[in-house]
């Protein structure tokens, strides 16, 4: 993933999009993403200075709870696993969560609200404290996650640009990975 220098912050910025995640250790950059109905979780181990962010959306088309768990839980598990592989201690990890707006009426079944409910329930079930959140509402957001301090800057995005964000989220849903492979050894 490529970074670019951001003059306002004076450090490099790395952009992630729907279905992606990024984890780093002792690295001072900003991870950024733009969110409509999607949710991003910023995970931080303040002791080990390990930070990671994902960006996910539950499937709009499915009413199957197992499907929803597969998408949302998988996004969270991949993020947390990469944190652990990088040396994070599970009990140190705290979350800041953002997104889940409901602006676009074309997106059925209130997907933003479902994303918000998912991340809150998941964090409780898996014992990860949410120490900050900016969820729900009617506006899209851009967030910047400082990987050394754990601080998150949030910008609200106007309605004109928000519609572009929502449209992009709808079209990128199909890129979410499907079921994993099985290999039996000899």
């Amino acid at each position, binding site marked *: 993933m490529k970074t670019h220098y951001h003059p306002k912050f004076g450090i490099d910025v790395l952009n992630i999009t729907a279905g992606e995640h990024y984890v780093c250790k002792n690295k001072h950059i900003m991870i950024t993403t733009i969110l409509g109905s999607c949710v991003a979780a910023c995970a931080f181990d303040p002791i080990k200075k390990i930070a990671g962010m994902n960006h996910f959306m539950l499937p709009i088309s499915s009413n199957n709870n197992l499907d929803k768990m597969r998408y949302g839980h998988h996004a969270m598990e991949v993020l947390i696993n990469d944190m*652990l592989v990088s040396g994070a201690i599970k009990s140190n990890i705290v979350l800041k969560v953002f997104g889940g707006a409901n602006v676009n009426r074309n997106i059925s079944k209130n997907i933003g609200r479902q994303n918000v409910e998912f991340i809150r329930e998941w964090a409780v079930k898996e014992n990860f404290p949410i120490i900050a959140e900016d969820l729900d509402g009617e506006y899209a957001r851009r967030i910047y996650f400082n990987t050394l301090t754990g601080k998150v800057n949030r910008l609200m995005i106007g309605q004109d640009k928000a519609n572009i964000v929502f449209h992009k989220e709808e079209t990128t849903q199909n890129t979410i990975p499907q079921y*994993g492979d*099985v290999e*039996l*050894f000899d």
Partner: protein
Amino acid sequence: MRIALAIRIIFLEKIMAKILVIDDSRTIREMLIFSLKAQHTVDEAENGQIGIDMFKRQTYDLVITDLNMPNIDGLTVIREYRKLPQYRSKPILMLTTEADATKKQQGKEAGATGWMVKPFDPAKLIATIAKVLG
């Protein structure tokens, strides 16, 4: 006669096994139990150490373990499993988000029967279990 045959077919299709699921994620444990409980008896362990203690105390037909867990990882769980005489020929499956070939090789060398990458397909999981138990 037909009823007796139907019962026999149902009985043969239903391979009841005692399975232990080791994963630090409560959600994954719940999804596994939900997927398997119709056909099998499933116990759960929330970390590697509890899992090792459980399969030492009682005998399981199959263990499914995660790889990345706090303190004791899945590879250590497999090595501990294979040390025990009662599990030398019994199956143990890795269920993980990792799909890397090097990690798979480590799993194979540790004694894993197979490697399943998350997110898992419940139908494929059931078929894999039937195969390794058969």
